[in-house]
Each structure stands twice: as C-alpha cells, then as structure tokens.
C-alpha cells in the first residue's frame, strides 16, 4: 500500500481519507519516507519538518476519527515554496541574506491551508528571492528535474515543481511574477495555475514585484489545483491588492465538458514571435483537435507581439523588485548569489519615465485583451517553447525570439492562466500547454485543463527516474 500512496492525486487521497481507507498519519509517513529516500537526488526541499508534519497528521487523524472531516485538504501532505512565511520556522527565500529570517506569523495562504487541515511537510527550494535563476552559489543546492536530474526545473518555484512531479508532496504553493509557477510546472510535467491578480492573498509572502506577484498552487492535476484554489481564494484586507469577490466553485466546474466553448489560439506567439519546438506545436494541435472533437469552436486571435509583453513586464518587475531590495543590494550585496544580485541590481537602471510608460502601455494591453476576449472564452498557446534545458544554464538569457516561456503576458494583464502537461517529447520529457482566461474565470481555465489532461491521458505517466532510484534503494 505504502508504495502507491505517493502516486495518488489529492482528489483520490481525500476520498480515501474521508472513507477512512487511508489515514493522514500513513500518508504523511509515506511521503516523509519518500523524501528521505529520494530528495537527495533532486534537492526539492531545503527544510523538512518531519516532527511537525507527523504531529499535524496525528491531529488530523484524531479529528477525522471523531467525525470532524474538514474537507478535501484535511490530512493532505503539501510543501511551501520558501518565500511563504511560516510562524517560528525560517523563511529564507533560498538566500544567505534571509538565512536567519524567522517570521512571527504565517502567510495568509499558509494559515488557510493549515485551517483546512493540510499537512506541511516543509519548505521548498526556489530561485533566490523568486528571481535569481538556477544558482550554484547559494547556501542550498538548486532543485533538479525528476524526469532527468541533469536537467533544470526552471523557476522560480523550482522545488515546488520538482517535489510534486517526483511524488514528494501532493501539492505545493508557488508564486508567479513572470511565469514562476507555469515555467516549472511545464518543465516538470505537472499542473500549475497563476490565478487572477488579487484572487489569492500575498500577505506574508516575500515580495518581488508588487503589481505582478501572484500566489498559486502546483499539483499533479488541474483538478487538484481546483481543490487547493477552493481553500486559497479568499479576500484578505491585509493585502491591498486582494479582490473582494466571491470565490467561484472551482471543483464544481470540473467535468462539466467543453461543448460550445470558444477557444482562441494565439498562433502568432508560437509561429512568429518566439521560435517554438515542432514537438510543442504538434502537441498543441493535437489538444486543439480534442477540444474541437468535444464541441468547442477554435479560432485564431491576435494580441500584441509577445515581445511587447516582455518589454512591459521586465521594466515593471525589475523596477519594483529593485525598490524591494535596494537597501540590501547597497549594504550586503555579497550575501546574494551572482544571478540574483545582477538581476535585482539591473532594476536600478530603469528610468522613472520608462517605468511610468510601461504602466501606461500595460493598461492598453489589458484593454486590448479584454476586447479580444469578448469573442472567445479562453486562450490557448504553449507554456514553454521547448522541453527542460540542462541544469544551470541561464534559461532567461537570450534574444526575445528565444525566450523559453510564453508566460509574461498574463502577469502583465492579470487574468488567470494554467499550465498543463499535454504530451511528451520523443526523449520522454513533458510538453506543455497554457490555457488563459478572463479575470476571475479561474474555474473555467482549470476545467479546460482537467478536460485535456483526462482526454490526452498524460497523467498516467510519472517520472521514471524517481521510481528507478526508489527501486535501487530498496
């Protein structure tokens, strides 16, 4: 039994917990054992909270035994990107600068997960302060890709992507300022959603770019993301960007079909703006065929060239990140890794006029997108231009036509975007597809993601290497 627990989805495990076919203690023990056995290969955790997790699991077990099942996250083992504040537990940002930073309070999202009964297994690796890149000069090693440990996970939610893909936790929290949930979701072959700006609180999450930071879940399936979103989507008056809106019924939308759905394909993104691997395009076309066959209508749409989103996004995010880090960059630059230091310092060179004009241009991009989305319900395009690249290469470097991801457009404009695995390359690496929607229609993009995952059958294939390592260790 233990051998199979790590391959359950949250939906499956929560059903078994509620029916008392598996206990939170069994589940937590299974994951802690797997972390001990495997994580040395992929470095997804920088802190494992073994005792705390077991204590939480025992409490959950007692509550459920007493008939107080709280809902589908009760007793479910998860992990947190190490930029989420945890009361009394170091929150480092994967940086020497914050090595001794111990917050007094949980982040709002951490509190919500705790109240829902989720078990926190530990703190997960990240690019330094969610920007630094895959760095070898930090106090902890970078996460590695479980599909091939010589490859990168992408970032910045690197540990979250690796841990979920390797079956070291059932769900994880990531953050997405320029694609940091969707990039690692794509390269690690899992699902990850950047929710609508303001839908999830960012209170207690180390900030990077105030107007583009988003919190969000990363899971093996889109359905599991929906389960986590149901707990996480709540107005927080302590986050000035938080939207006071009722949460949609994320899970209720799952399985309701795509008949009549209007799908817009942003074809120029991957045919003109960014050079894209033919295998990525072939998988996307196959996904479109599936949607068409199920009664969706497919049409091409035109947005601003992707490079415009990139220019607007980089000028804004680097300026805002520099505002956050300026003091430490001036007083303790040696405590940053080289990637993080350079990327953050570069924000000092953005002129005020360019920042303001980027914000003005951003408003135009929001309006343009809203106009396009009068005629379609969701947009579809790839998440990544190719499969995972070798560990340590600067995946964000290179000319605009070879940027690795199609993510920034929705950080700039704020709508929801989910990345799912829509197939595998000839080399056996995950391919990815992105579904984006209108603001606050996060349930719709998750529904389409779930539909495609089921129809394409991609969720039956797990990373082989992690199993091979497990077998070798027995």
């Amino acid at each position, binding site marked *: 039994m233990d051998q199979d627990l790590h391959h359950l989805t949250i939906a499956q495990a929560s059903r078994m917990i509620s029916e008392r076919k598996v206990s939170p203690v069994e589940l937590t023990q299974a994951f802690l054992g797997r972390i001990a056995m495997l994580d040395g290969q992929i470095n997804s955790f920088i802190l494992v909270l073994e005792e705390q997790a077991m204590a939480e699991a025992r409490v959950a077990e007692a509550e459920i035994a007493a008939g107080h099942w709280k809902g589908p996250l009760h007793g479910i083992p998860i992990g947190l990107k190490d930029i989420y504040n945890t009361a009394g537990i170091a929150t480092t940002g994967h940086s020497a600068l914050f090595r001794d930073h111990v917050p007094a309070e949980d982040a709002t999202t951490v509190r919500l997960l705790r109240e829902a009964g989720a078990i926190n297994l530990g703190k997960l690796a990240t690019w330094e302060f969610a920007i630094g890149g895959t760095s070898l000069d930090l106090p902890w090693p970078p996460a590695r890709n479980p599909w091939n440990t010589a490859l990168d996970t992408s970032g910045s939610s690197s540990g979250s992507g690796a841990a979920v893909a390797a079956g070291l936790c059932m769900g994880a929290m990531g953050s997405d300022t320029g694609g940091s949930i969707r990039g690692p979701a794509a390269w690690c072959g899992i699902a990850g959603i950047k929710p*609508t*700006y*303001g839908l999830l609180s960012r209170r207690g999450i180390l900030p990077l770019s105030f*107007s583009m930071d988003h919190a969000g879940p990363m899971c093996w399936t889109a359905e599991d993301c929906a389960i986590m979103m149901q707990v996480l989507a709540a107005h927080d008056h302590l986050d000035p*960007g938080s*939207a*006071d*809106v*009722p949460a949609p019924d994320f899970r209720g939308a799952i399985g309701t079909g795509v008949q009549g759905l209007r799908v817009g394909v942003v074809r120029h993104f991957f045919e003109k703006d960014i050079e894209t691997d033919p295998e990525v395009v072939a998988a996307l076309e196959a996904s479109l065929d599936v949607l068409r066959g199920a009664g969706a209508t497919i049409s091409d749409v035109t947005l601003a060239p992707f*490079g*415009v989103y*990139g*220019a*607007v996004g*980089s*000028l804004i995010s*680097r300026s805002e990140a520099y505002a956050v880090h300026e003091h430490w*960059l*001036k007083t303790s*630059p040696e405590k940053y890794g*080289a990637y993080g*230091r*350079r*990327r953050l*310092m*570069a924000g*000092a*060179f*953005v*002129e005020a006029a*360019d920042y*303001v*004009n*980027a*914000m*003005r*241009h*951003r*408003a135009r*991009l*929001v309006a343009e997108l*809203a106009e396009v989305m009068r005629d379609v319900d969701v947009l579809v395009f790839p998440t990544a231009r190719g499969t995972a690249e070798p560990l340590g290469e600067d995946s964000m*470097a290179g000319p605009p036509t070879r940027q690795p991801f199609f993510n920034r457009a929705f950080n700039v*404009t*704020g709508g929801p975007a989910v990345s799912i695995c829509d197939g595998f390359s000839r080399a056996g690496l995950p391919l990815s597809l992105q579904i984006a929607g*209108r*603001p*606050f229609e996060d349930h719709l993009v998750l529904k389409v993601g779930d539909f495609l995952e089921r129809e394409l059958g991609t969720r039956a294939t797990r990373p082989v290497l992690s199993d091979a390592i497990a077998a070798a260790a027995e």
Partner: protein
Amino acid sequence: MPDTDIVQRLRQAGLRIADEELTRMEDLARSHDAAALRLRASLKFGDEPSNVFRLPMPQERRS
C-alpha cells in the same frame, strides 16, 4: 575597476559588484535599455489620459 558606462551607472546608483560580473551586468542593462527603447518607439501617447495610480488589473468582478 574599469571606468566603463556600466561602472558609472552602478556608481551613480550607489551599487558595487565584482569586476568579473561586469560583462553580465552590461548584458542585463542592455536588455532593459532595449525594452525601454521598444516601448518608446511604439508609444505615441499625445494628450491621452492615463491612470497609473490604479493598477490596470481588475479589482472587481467584471460584469
């Protein structure tokens, strides 16, 4: 430290990095300059009003 443009820009900002990082820093600065130039070239704002104080993302559900 050589007296290059990037060194002057760093000094002006009150920042310092090691000599061996200067080239990569220059690359980053150049990419930001290119992004700014791209926007300047495509924007003709004229008298068009803009509200940069309110984030352009919707804070309320769209009707």
